């Protein structure tokens, strides 16, 4: 079993650079995801690993072997296509058997191995059917069986769940993880769905405009996003941007250009402190913020802001509050806890306190050039940034 190594990998389509100088090692046996908006180059990257596109420069290695120029049928890599691409004129058995049949393997062995695969995906009783006679989830299973029968070192999955409905998607996700555990080979998974990527992956890479923005384990990327893009694309977040006016030992003062100097404690153990005078952007996840009517007891490592509720969205598992603090708006997720039911429920126009732990304030941008403008923060989202991305 070998690692997949991408070295300075680039792909140009005319003047458009789809994949831009990607360097990455995907360890053997890992379940690795590429996550990004459509057009970010993740599918092109996958197609280069599969062999459907040749790199414009750089190399794809499988262990010590350079496989960049090998045709797809000579690579120990198999793919599950977005629409499964099952052969419509063959039975499910023949679909799964295809990889062995082209290798002219003995019929008896083909039969045994096909049924072994069909049993793995629990489709053995449907072997005689044709692809148009089965459901989307079943097609998915057949596609998995067909791809795994060649015993590849790496399985590529190109948005494999995109065509399924939500419940089935959640179910198949668990099944994919089980199959991954059962066969123990490398899975490379491409998706634009962050919850899929977060839940399934050992590690994932966030891509934008052909480049890897950040790679690492899901919790690392979620809790410590390296850029505005990572923070914005994965999950939901509040951005606070402003000019650093003073840096103290365990907190810094930030001019958010909303008429008040605000002080924020940031977690200094993970990040280097920004210089005074520099423009920075902080990311603060909505579920990290607590909301209360009464001022919380002062603690050194707690940030506090006083605001007014502007909007309340009841979402079942939690409620989303839009809270105005001066010129800034914060999104806050709060779960409904039965113990607080004695309290009077928060209502529109209520004055509230927002507070959060200093380690939850995360500096995502120190250079300042990517910083969303104050007026964008005003409207509570990142429209300008979204437009700049190639989505």
């Amino acid at each position: 079993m070998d690692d997949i190594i991408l070295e300075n990998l680039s792909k140009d389509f005319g003047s458009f650079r789809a994949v831009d100088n990607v360097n990455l090692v995907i360890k053997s046996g890992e379940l690795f995801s590429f996550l990004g908006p459509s057009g970010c180059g993740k599918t092109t990257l996958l197609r280069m690993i599969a062999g459907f596109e040749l790199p414009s420069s750089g190399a794809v290695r499988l262990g010590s072997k350079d496989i960049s120029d090998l045709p797809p049928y000579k690579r120990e890599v198999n793919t599950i296509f977005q629409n499964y691409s099952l052969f419509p004129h063959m039975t499910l058995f023949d679909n799964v058997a295809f990889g062995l049949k082209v290798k002219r393997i003995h019929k008896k062995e083909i039969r045994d191995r096909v049924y072994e695969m069909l049993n793995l995906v629990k489709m053995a009783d449907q072997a005689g059917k044709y692809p148009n006679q089965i459901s989307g989830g079943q097609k998915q299973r057949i596609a998995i069986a067909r791809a795994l029968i060649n015993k590849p070192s790496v399985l590529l999955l190109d948005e494999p769940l995109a065509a399924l409905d939500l419940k089935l998607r959640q179910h198949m996700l668990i099944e994919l993880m089980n199959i991954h555990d059962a066969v123990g080979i490398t899975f490379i998974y491409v998706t634009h769905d962050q919850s899929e990527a977060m839940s399934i992956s050992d590690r994932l890479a966030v891509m934008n405009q052909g480049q890897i923005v950040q790679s690492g384990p899901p919790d690392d990327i979620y809790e410590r996003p390296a850029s505005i893009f990572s923070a914005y694309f994965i999950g939901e977040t509040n951005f606070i941007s402003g000019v650093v006016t003073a840096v103290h030992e365990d907190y810094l003062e930030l001019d958010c250009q909303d008429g008040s100097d605000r002080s924020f404690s940031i977690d200094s153990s993970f990040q280097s402190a920004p210089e005074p005078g520099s423009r920075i952007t902080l990311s603060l996840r909505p579920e990290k913020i607590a909301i209360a009517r009464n001022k919380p007891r002062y603690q050194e490592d707690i940030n506090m802001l006083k605001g007014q509720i502007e909007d309340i969205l009841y979402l079942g598992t939690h409620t989303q509050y839009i809270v105005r603090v001066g010129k800034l708006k914060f999104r806050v997720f709060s779960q409904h806890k039965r113990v607080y039911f004695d309290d009077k429920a928060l209502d529109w126009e209520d004055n509230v306190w927002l507070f959060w732990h200093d380690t939850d304030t995360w500096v995502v941008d120190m250079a300042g050039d990517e910083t969303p403008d104050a007026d964008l923060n005003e409207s509570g989202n990142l429209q300008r940034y979204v437009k700049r991305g190639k989505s």
Partner: protein
Amino acid sequence: MQSTLQSRQDRRRNLSSWLLSLPTLIWLTCFFLIPYLIVIIYSFLSPDIYDVKFEVSLDAYRQIFSGDYLRPFLLSFRLAIYTTLLCILLGFPVAYFIARSKEKTRNLLLIFIIIPFWTNLIIRIFSWRIFLAYNGVMNDTLINLGIISQPLEILRTDLAVILVMVYVYLPYMILPLYSVLEKLDFTLLNAAMDLGANEVKAFFRITLPLAVEGIFAGTLLVFIPALGAYLIPQLVGNQQSLYVGQVITYKIKNIPRNWPMASALSLTLLLLVAILLLLMYGLYRRHQKRSQWQ
């Protein structure tokens, strides 16, 4: 109550559909059914110098089944088979190429395929005669280029007949092939290659089976007219090898005429085509049954 209303509606719908198809029915009766009945009746009559004698005779059929006309039939079948095979071999790559082109180029290429239809068939055949003739364009060019020293005698050979037949019937093969290949999901070929099939295997296991319908349709459109070919053998072929179509014409054109023989030959050809159609239909049904995906 409701059922009477429904049946009245049904009856009205029946009546209106009959009325609507009446012109076609009259047309087909006058120009298809009645002529065929005349042909059938004539085939059982006796020949006269110009016309027929109204005496029942099975001579025409007796001659056909004793094998007197085996050679023209064999020649016609050979021509039809060669033409069809060559049209498939030449037409498939063209249809494939068009189907894989970008939308704009695709339309342009399709127009190129259709353009020959805008010129009369006889004119196109005559231009081939000019091209292939002993002192024609092709021989002149080849001699001037120094490739050959003696003019090739292609015109008035069976080769010329096949050449022009393929030229005329190729579009009838390309268009149905194109229509199936255009619908072919080319990611299936990616999938096949991903699973270990090289280009050749992917073609024979995926592309070809999925294009079978187009091949069937193209074969019908090429084989059957080729079987009854008259004009092309007459204009570019020689008189030593006469095809069924030509024999039928001569039976009517040359005096003494033999209307019963011409009719009997026509009906035999029709019968053979009908049997062939049934065979192909059977094959097609079997193919469809085997692949319930359609």
